[in-house]
């Protein structure tokens, strides 16, 4: 299969970025919007074409999906160790191409309406293109270092986009927080890469992931503190992934990242960038699975499960709809991690892996839809808070319907997309780890509950008094909603297990009816409770909130993780490390240097007294000198 044209997929957004970025003052906003959408349409078309070619035409040889690589050396370290930049085409990268293209295109179109009239319109599209370019580069990466390079680039695009309203202090601090927290996680990633480079001698995925390769077979040979170094490297790499994918305890940046414009939240913080962590684990799945019998993979599973539960609980208590969606994203990402964690490798064993990717795909569609829908609502009522909303179904029919579809999808109600992927995840968990399965089921119920809580809160409930009468959003915004709604309905019917499996051999997946029934039942149960509590304004929710007492308060304060981090950064790093160091520098290091200088001046001041300017002192010294010289000569002559 000839893949050379795929180079264009990332390069077109890059060109658009350079064009818009360098001429942001000169290009008219209307034109820049068209340029952005047009550029991305081409990329998206190429992506779809690639997917079609790969999955359906000539990706397979002997029923195994082949990996196509096209790369060139970017920087040399030694003969064997070098960083390449290139393109790697395999099932998950093609799947990611489709996800990124679809969501990004929808968001581009949506943004033309949403950002209308904003003074930084061109800049916004430039940033979006930069992000899309970086994300393409990330998913197409051929080696760990390339992934790291684009990893940083998506991080910085995220920084720029969160801080898009740069005059707003909260946006700036959210942007900083997002960047620094993920940067901290990337530190682990980088060290992991360094370890991997040293012990495995390569950054290439093909070398690393080969189940018969030396890396995996000899992975346990060198150990450090009871674990093999490769496991350590994987755990550190997972730390990077956890940072990007907002896994507990590195999740704190994600809710704040909602300060960015809503289309950005939909694109970056729901559908694409945040799944990079999941993608990374999936990318290195053979290593995670084989090295030391999947120790690292177990960690992934538990971190994922805990994050899913943790975020779902917090999501229930939030009142800012974007934050609810943010925690929901975190919870769903935990779901994907969990699925990877409970996956096997061969044949049907790999259902967890497949389910994770499936959920990634469907989640991208319906979560993007939820965000865009929320954006549409916010656009209409100019507030993020539930208390300012209610009864909007009358005014915004399209938004209402599409939001409902997305909510049903995420709640796992058949036949919407979320049902299929979530069911597969639960199947995988049930087969491998019962404990995780129970968590998964519980989270599914919570998900349905909080999602319908905000759905009822926004569109039903008591109608608030609005300053401006809310109205349906313009067509440029509703078309993407409708497209994504359609995808949320039909995406579940894609036979994912045919395409994406760990060993790249397709298998037939069957619906496990009892498990599916349980999951659906739990989901419906959650919806039912939400209906009771929030369909009409009543005091039930407050009563129950009171019943939970302090626990409710903790959850609504996000279990105080922000405060803990704030304590660490402000108190410990700023006041306990930096301030003393700065002081130490001024006082002791500089003080010593100054001290040497001052002592010299002091001594010279002392000595200066000899040169007093009093001629009588000079005379005294003169006579003394003469006498001493005379004495010396007398001594010499008389001996």
């Amino acid at each position, binding site marked *: 299969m000839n893949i050379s044209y795929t180079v264009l997929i990332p390069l077109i957004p890059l060109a658009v970025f350079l064009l818009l970025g360098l001429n942001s003052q000169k290009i008219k906003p209307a034109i820049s919007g068209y340029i952005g959408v047009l550029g991305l349409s081409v990329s998206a078309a190429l992506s779809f074409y690639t997917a079609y070619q790969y999955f359906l035409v000539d990706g397979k040889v002997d029923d195994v999906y082949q990996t196509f690589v096209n790369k060139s050396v970017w920087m040399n370290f030694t003969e064997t160790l070098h960083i390449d930049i290139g393109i790697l085409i395999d099932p998950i990268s093609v799947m990611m191409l489709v996800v990124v293209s679809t969501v990004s295109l929808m968001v581009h179109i949506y943004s033309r309406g949403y950002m209308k009239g904003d003074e930084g319109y061109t800049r916004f599209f430039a940033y979006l293109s930069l992000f899309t370019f970086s994300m393409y580069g990330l998913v197409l990466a051929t080696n760990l270092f390339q992934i790291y390079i684009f990893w940083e680039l998506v991080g910085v695009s995220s920084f720029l986009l969160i801080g898009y309203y740069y005059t707003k202090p909260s946006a700036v601090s959210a942007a900083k927080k997002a960047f620094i927290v993920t940067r901290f996680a990337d530190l682990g990633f980088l060290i992991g890469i360094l370890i991997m480079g040293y012990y495995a001698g390569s950054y290439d995925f093909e070398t690393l992931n080969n189940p018969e390769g030396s890396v995996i077979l000899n992975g346990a040979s060198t150990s450090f503190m009871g674990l093999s170094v490769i496991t350590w490297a994987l755990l550190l790499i997972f730390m990077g992934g956890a940072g990007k994918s907002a896994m507990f305890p590195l999740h704190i940046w994600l809710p704040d990242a909602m300060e960015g414009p809503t289309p950005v939240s939909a694109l970056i913080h729901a559908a694409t960038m945040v799944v990079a962590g999941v993608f990374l684990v999936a990318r290195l799945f053979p290593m995670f699975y084989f090295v030391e019998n999947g120790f690292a993979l177990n960690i992934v599973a538990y971190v994922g499960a805990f994050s899913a539960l943790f975020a779902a609980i917090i999501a229930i208590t939030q009142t800012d709809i974007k934050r609810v969606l943010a925690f929901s994203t975190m919870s769903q990402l935990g779901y994907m991690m969990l699925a990877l964690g409970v996956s096997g490798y061969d044949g049907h064993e790999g259902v967890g892996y497949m389910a994770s990717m499936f959920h990634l795909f469907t989640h991208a569609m319906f979560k993007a839809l939820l965000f865009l829908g929320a954006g549409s609502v916010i656009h209409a009522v100019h507030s993020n808070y539930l208390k300012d909303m209610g009864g909007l179904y009358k005014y915004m029919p399209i938004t209402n319907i599409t939001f409902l579809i997305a909510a049903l999808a995420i709640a796992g109600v058949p036949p919407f997309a979320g049902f299929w992927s979530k069911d597969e995840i639960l199947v995988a968990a049930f087969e491998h780890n019962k404990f995780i399965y129970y968590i998964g089921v519980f989270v599914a119920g919570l998900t349905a509950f909080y999602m319908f809580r905000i759905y009822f809160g926004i569109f039903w409930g008591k109608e608030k008094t609005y300053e401006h009468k809310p109205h349906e959003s313009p067509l440029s915004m509703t078309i993407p909603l409708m497209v994504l709604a359609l995808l949320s309905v039909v995406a579940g019917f894609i036979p994912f297990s045919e395409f994406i499996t760990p060993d790249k051999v397709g298998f037939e997946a069957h619906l496990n009816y009892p498990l599916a029934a349980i999951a659906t039942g739990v989901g419906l149960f959650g919806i039912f409770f939400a209906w009771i509590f929030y369909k009409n304004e009543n005091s039930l929710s407050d009563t129950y909130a009171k019943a939970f007492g302090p626990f409710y308060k903790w959850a609504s304060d996000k279990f105080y993780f922000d405060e803990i981090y704030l304590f660490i950064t402000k108190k410990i790093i700023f006041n306990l490390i930096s301030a003393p160091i700065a002081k130490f520098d001024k006082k002791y290091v500089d003080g010593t240097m100054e001290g040497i200088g001052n002592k010299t001046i002091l001594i010279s001041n002392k000595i200066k007294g000899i*040169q*007093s*300017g*009093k*001629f*009588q002192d000079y*005379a*005294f010294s003169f*006579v003394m000198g003469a006498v001493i010289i005379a004495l010396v000569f007398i001594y010499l002559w008389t001996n």
Partner: protein
Amino acid sequence: MIAGISIYEILTVTSILFFIGIYGFITRKNLISVLISIELILNASVVNFVVINKYLYPDMLQGVIFAIFIIAVAAAETALAVSIIINLYRQISSVEVKDTEIMKY
């Protein structure tokens, strides 16, 4: 020649005079006193010239003539010193040594 007095005794006296002059030069706090001390030192050396001429080389006159020269120079020097002192007194209304330390820096 002084009957009964050897050159040693005369030289002793002039040495004492010389060091009294030096003592004065170093300890006095007033420029005129310093000038006086200088006169003592000069006189001590003049006497030495003369005495050595007389005792060791009586046939020559170099010592005497140098004594005359020294006296002449001393006179000139004193005249100059006094004029400097007077001028200084005009400038800073003092002839104390401690007030003339501005050459220190």
